[in-house]
């Protein structure tokens, strides 16, 4: 008996992207909804009847009715696929929470909600052991019950859960995780489908994070995937195949600059993307040390790049600017030079609380002097 299904998670439908301009945010929100179609088509192409979504289907507990309705409509459009939805920490199954609303509104027949930790036979010989999040923050390993959950002999056991695996995420903002790294073995699971980690990542032989199908932030991992899992029989190792699904590419670059030419690489990359650059979000974290002249050129270059991609965020706070004699000569003679010298002194004084503003003023002077010179 073989069972093939699609493992996804962290759709975060309804994410608002408040940190972006309104027009940029609208497009990104829409892209998350479009993920459903991408997954539906992928399932159809691979003759897959079940899609397991391991939590965080919704980005927040309180979403507009229209958003929830839009998702359910899209899910219902793929009648041949059964969507198994699990509450995550972003959309926990709290009393009167978002899932109560979904239930009250009514879900399409091909949508199966797993709001309680109860084994469910989702296909002949296949038992799903869901571990829904019941609160925004849990203090226990919600998958622990799977160890003692009895299922008829010979059935494939698939766990579906959302949360961190102990010791998996070592970043500072991680809570360390609560799910046992040996849960799949301890609970005799043929596969444990996890959500929460937005990158596609294997935890153990039978335990994976699928990651989010559509990236939603500048990543530390590798988002934009779903996983096709095939299990030949109970007790056999799963065959796992990741597929790329992302529409937008979120790219974070940390560059150490010594001149504007050091941006040529990213410029060329964007140039080669052509119109596809519009589906790129780039975050540049620039450091190093450049001249005032180069700093101005870098600002121009960033403006050019921003015009080509969907979003460009540039963090220049670590980019140190030094004012050279050439810069000062460019600014001019006489009064302008005097002004430049005074600003330079203020900018380079480590005890001056306005040093940052003075540096900015120096850049403004540089630009204005070129502008005025050009006008003349």
């Amino acid at each position: 008996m073989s069972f093939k299904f699609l493992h996804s998670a962290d759709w975060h439908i309804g994410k608002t992207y408040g940190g972006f301009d309104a027009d940029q945010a609208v497009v990104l929100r829409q892209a998350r909804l479009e993920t459903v179609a991408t997954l539906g088509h992928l399932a159809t192409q691979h003759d897959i009847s079940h899609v397991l979504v391991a939590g965080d289907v919704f980005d927040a507990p309180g979403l507009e009715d229209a958003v929830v309705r839009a998702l359910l409509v899209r899910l219902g459009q793929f009648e041949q696929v059964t969507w198994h939805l699990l509450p995550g920490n972003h959309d926990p199954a709290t009393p009167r929470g978002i899932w109560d609303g979904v239930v009250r509104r009514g879900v399409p027949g091909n949508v199966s909600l797993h709001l309680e930790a109860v084994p469910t036979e989702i296909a002949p010989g296949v038992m799903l052991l869901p571990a829904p999040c019941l609160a925004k923050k849990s203090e226990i390993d919600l998958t622990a019950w799977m160890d003692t959950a009895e299922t008829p002999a010979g059935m494939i056991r698939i766990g579906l859960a959302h949360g961190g695996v102990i010791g998996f995420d070592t970043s500072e903002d991680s809570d360390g995780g609560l799910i046992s790294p040996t849960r799949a073995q301890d609970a005799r699971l043929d596969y444990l489908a996890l959500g929460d980690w937005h990158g596609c990542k294997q935890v153990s032989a039978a335990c994976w994070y699928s990651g989010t199908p559509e990236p939603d932030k500048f990543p530390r991992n590798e988002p934009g995937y779903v996983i096709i899992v095939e299990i030949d029989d109970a007790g056999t190792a799963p065959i796992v195949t990741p597929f790329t699904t992302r529409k937008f590419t979120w790219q974070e670059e940390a560059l150490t600059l010594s001149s504007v030419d050091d941006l040529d690489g990213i410029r060329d990359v964007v140039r080669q993307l052509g119109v596809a650059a519009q589906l790129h979000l780039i975050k540049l974290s620039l450091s190093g040390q450049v001249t005032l002249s180069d700093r101005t050129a870098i600002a121009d270059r960033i403006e050019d790049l921003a015009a080509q991609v969907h979003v460009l965020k540039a963090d220049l706070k670590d980019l140190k600017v030094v004012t050279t004699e050439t810069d000062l000569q460019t600014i001019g003679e006489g009064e302008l030079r005097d002004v430049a010298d005074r600003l330079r002194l203020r900018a380079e004084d480590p005890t001056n609380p306005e040093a940052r503003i003075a540096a900015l003023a120096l850049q403004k002077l540089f630009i204005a002097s070129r502008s005025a010179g050009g006008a003349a």
Partner: protein
Amino acid sequence: MKLKALRVREVGRFSQPVALEGFTGGLDVFVGDNEAGKSTLVKALKTIFSEKYSSKNQKTVGALVPYAGGAPLIEVDFEIAGQSLRLTKQFWSGTSARLFDLTAGQVIARNADAETALHKFLHGAGRGTSPLGLFWLDQQEPLSLKPVDKDDQSRLRDVIANQFSDVVVGGEALGVRRVIEDRLKLLVTKGGLVANANRKPLKNGDWDARLRERDAAQIDLNKFEARYAEAQERLRRLLDIERRIADLAAPAAATQRTDALAMAKKVLAGMQGARAKRQTAVAEHGAKLADLKNAETAHMKFVSQLDQLAKLEADLATATEELQRERQAAATASEKLKLLSEEHTSGQAELVVTRSVEETLRLEQNHAGDAKRHDEVAARIREIDALLKKAEQLEAELRDNQATPSRIVALERELLSIDQIEARLAAAAPEISVAYETTASDRVLFDGRTLAEGETFRIDQLAVLMIPGVGKISVKPGGSDDVVEDRRDLAAHREVAAEVLQKIAVSDPDDALKIGKLRADAERALSDTRVRLSALAPQGPEVLRDELGQLAEKVAAYKKAQNAVDSIKTAVAEQLPTLEAAAARVRALDGQQLDTAAALEKIRTEHAAAVARVARLEARSEELGNQQARLESELPDTAARDGLLQKLQDALVAARSSVAVADQQLKDLDEVAGSETTFVTAQAIFEKAEVQVRNVERELEQLRLDKKGLEGELTVAEQQGIGAHLQECRERLEHTEQRVQRVADEVAALAMLLDEMAAVEQQSRDRFLQPVMIGLQPYFDLVFPGACLRFSQDLSMAELTRNNQVEPFANISDGTREQLAILVRMGFGRVFANGGQPLPLVLDDPLAFSDDSRLGAMFQAFEVAAKAHQVVVLSCREQAFEALQGNRLTLTSWRPDAGA
């Protein structure tokens, strides 16, 4: 530049061509009447340099067209950059322009080319407006040159900013500042464009827009946070309600409530029935209790009497035995008492005898010491008596002697003073010495006696020397103040000395001193005597006399008892050979007697107690016998007593059984009826159960209504997606705050830049004004010596300091302001001239408000200025300007076609 000639035709009042020729390029003066056309000539001069030949400007060219019509023709000869040029412009109609090189005698350019060439001559390759504007001072114009006059300020600023840019002020800086200002204009209000100003966001500007965007995000966030909190609160309330409904409506809970009500009702009804039956049962129970009480009383009384009798018999037997014992004890104690009394009496007799022996032996032992001490004390008393007698004699002597030490000292002091004063007076008195001639011996008489040869004496009063046959010689001692005072003091001292002698009762001071010495000797002897007495009897003679008396008595007593002592010593020589043995025996006997006395006392007490107990027991036995007799008389015969007791016991058992049955009945009823508290509680429980059922129904009804309302509200909130909006608002606020920060940083940077530029410009102005002030100084020395002019930031004149008084420019008189305006222009002119670009200063009817003295000073200033650059003065005041030196110009006719 120097003007050489001016020619006009059909210009203002000059329909005919006229010319001012012969300018020297130094001080050129044209004096003409009012209406002579001076202002017209000045305007023509300004126009030809500032307006293009093709200009149709009504204010400038149009104003020159004569009332009768015509086309202004203006021609000017001038020197500039080493060239002599002639510029001719035909305005208004048939326009043309021509620039002619007078040296080369050829046309340099015509029309537009002429204008271009002229511009080059005037301004070189520089930018900006002509500096010439500064050097036209129209009639009355200086008065309008106020520090706040914008036109003038602008003119000065332009001249400084443009004309001197290549020298000190970077011209590019203006362009940069405009760029900065242009950007800042989009961000801050107009007031913020000034250096060091407080910058506020320009309404609808970029900064303002970002701030409003941020504020809107904050408002939205606040709104959604409030709504979210509200929804959360509703949700909490709804969940509480649902839990409450579930608790209340649960079947088990409902059954429990109805069961509780039914049970309470049943319990209450049972209690009410039992309470009715209980009243009858209580009465029956009371009667049976009374029966029982009677049976118990009869039984108890009989049993009690039997017990009492038995007890009396036992007590009587015990008392009889005890009486027997006590009587025996009393007899034993009496015997002991007798024996001890005899022992004590015999011991007492031995003690008396032994004490007598001890006293006798002690008397003998003390007698030797007492006798010796008696003799010592008697000798000492004898010496004391002799000393007391001597002291008495000395005291008598002293009482008779009045020469006390204080009087002797006072006398000695007075005698010394008298001696000293007398010595001084003697030394001061005239001394008379007699020395006769051989033939005149003993002829001098004094005080009735003949003075001997060589006799010498002093006098202290008038002395008359008699020389018979010759006459009298009177000698009078001098009467100085010292002598008078000494005499007065001498008399006083003598008086005091006499008083002292009188008190001592002598007249001769020597006697007084002798008596004083006798008194001193007696005092010393008395003192010695008293010391000795004190040593002999420290506690006084009487104590010694008392002691002597006591010793005498002891000695006498011993002597008297000496025979008895001897006989006693002989009698007890073996038993009590020494005083110590006798004393030891006395102490032993004392101890024995004390012990015997204590034992005697103890046995006496015991005897008395035994006697008392015997008496009490005899009384007790009698009392018990009497009681037994009384009780026996009350009871039946001994044989009938057991039967009566059995009968009473049977009656008691029957009564108790009956009461027990009644008790059980009552108890059973009580259990059902309960106590009053229990009954009240049962009533309360029933009523509470009833109320609870009703309340739960009402609460359920209300909860269901509330639930419905909250569900509706929550559904609305859910549909509005408050949670998602909240998240979005938070992100949007952060995003907008970043945008605000960027703009705020830009504003701060631009502002800082503007402020720094202003600071640098100020420095430049300061540098620039330095040569101006230097150029101005020679004129100030002439017109306002010692005064100082200060320029404000906009280069206008701010204030004049004279005689240490600061005068704001606005407060200065018209005449002075006009003079200052002209001098400042001459100061600028000197700067230009020093820079190799001399420009003419043209003054139209100047110094209209100047008094004669100031006029003269200004004329001198003109003359000084004219050495650096050309000064052209046009005036209508011929007399006033007569003193002004310089080249006098005259208006002449001109033939336009006659020129080159």
